[in-house]
């Protein structure tokens, strides 16, 4: 018989925000007491769309029966983690980013069972690109090059190649001077 995984996010809401505490509970039913070898609970993001799937694990917890011989792993177990600043859930044209809580149960006979609960992290507007494309701005045309007396911001630095963001942004202003 397949194990029945009950997983609940305790503070469900349409959108979870970075920095919030995500709490959940996991309970396993329909299997015997010592049938479970281990249970893994993961909070992760993964990509969907045209590209190959990428995965990023934010929270991982593994409970092995041998580590807790006196505890019934089937019993209700609570987990919690602080949600990161990024990457936010995103529904793009060819790239999508999804967040979920995943529980995987490994049985002593080699079988596995999996359960996922999706949630939304962040408030990226679903139509931000479509709406703003309609506001494409063509502010001015020029017949000749203007020698403007501007004071370009100082500081030279290197080009950035779009880093993987998984933390807090740095403070202070930074200027780049990227020339081709």
């Amino acid at each position, binding site marked *: 018989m397949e194990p029945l995984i009950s997983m609940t996010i305790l503070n469900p809401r349409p959108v979870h925000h970075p920095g919030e505490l995500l709490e959940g509970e996991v309970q396993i039913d329909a299997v015997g007491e010592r049938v479970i070898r281990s249970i893994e609970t993961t909070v992760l993001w993964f990509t969907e769309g*045209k590209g190959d799937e990428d995965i990023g694990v934010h929270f991982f917890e593994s409970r092995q029966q041998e580590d807790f011989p006196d505890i019934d792993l089937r019993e209700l177990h609570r987990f919690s983690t602080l949600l990161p600043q990024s990457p*936010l859930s995103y529904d793009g044209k*060819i790239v999508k980013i999804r967040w979920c809580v995943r529980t995987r149960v490994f049985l002593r006979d080699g079988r596995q069972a999996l359960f996922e609960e999706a949630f939304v992290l962040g408030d*990226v*507007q679903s139509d931000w690109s479509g709406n*703003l494309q309609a506001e494409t701005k063509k502010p001015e045309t020029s017949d000749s090059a203007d020698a403007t007396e501007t004071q370009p911001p100082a500081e030279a630095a290197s080009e950035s190649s*779009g*880093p*993987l963001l998984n933390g807090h942004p740095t403070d202070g202003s930074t200027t780049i001077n990227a020339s081709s």
Partner: protein
Amino acid sequence: RLLAAALFSPLWGAANAWMIVQAIQNARVGSVDWLLLTALAPFTAVSIWAVAYLFRQFLFYTAIGPTGVEVSALPMIPGETYQLFVSQVGRIQLKRLEISLVCEEEAQFHQGTDIRKETTEVFSKVLYEGVDVTIVPEQSFEKQFELEIPNGAMHSFASPSNAVSWRICVAVDFPREPGFRRKFPLVVYPKLQEA
């Protein structure tokens, strides 16, 4: 085009030079190769054209200087406004110059044994468009703008096979030559939210 001209011109010139040498040697021994002499004129004409074309391409590409892009702060945050400064140096006449803020999604995937990459533009905002722009060494093109990252926009993201990238794109068209696009990456962070 410059590379192609740089390869073609000396090769054709060498072949043409060999033909001339052969014709001269034939003339010295009193032998006349009419086929060689017939082919010599058009070969020489093409050789002269190739050298002139190479010289023109060299002048064209050296007339375009570097494009400079400066921003008032990095990383950027959606909903915030920044200052952007763009400069273009050189000695050239531009048919059109366009500066825009773009956001692109990039996805890399396997198709059989090939690895393919697809890029799609999901946001574009023209910040400046100029026509018939003349750039001279004494007066380079310089413009300063306000740049706003749309509120609620997606931040920069990169993983092994997927990316969301923000860029400043400078697109240039010339009267008689193909234009180019130069892209300068920006970094956009999500709004920092406290727990």
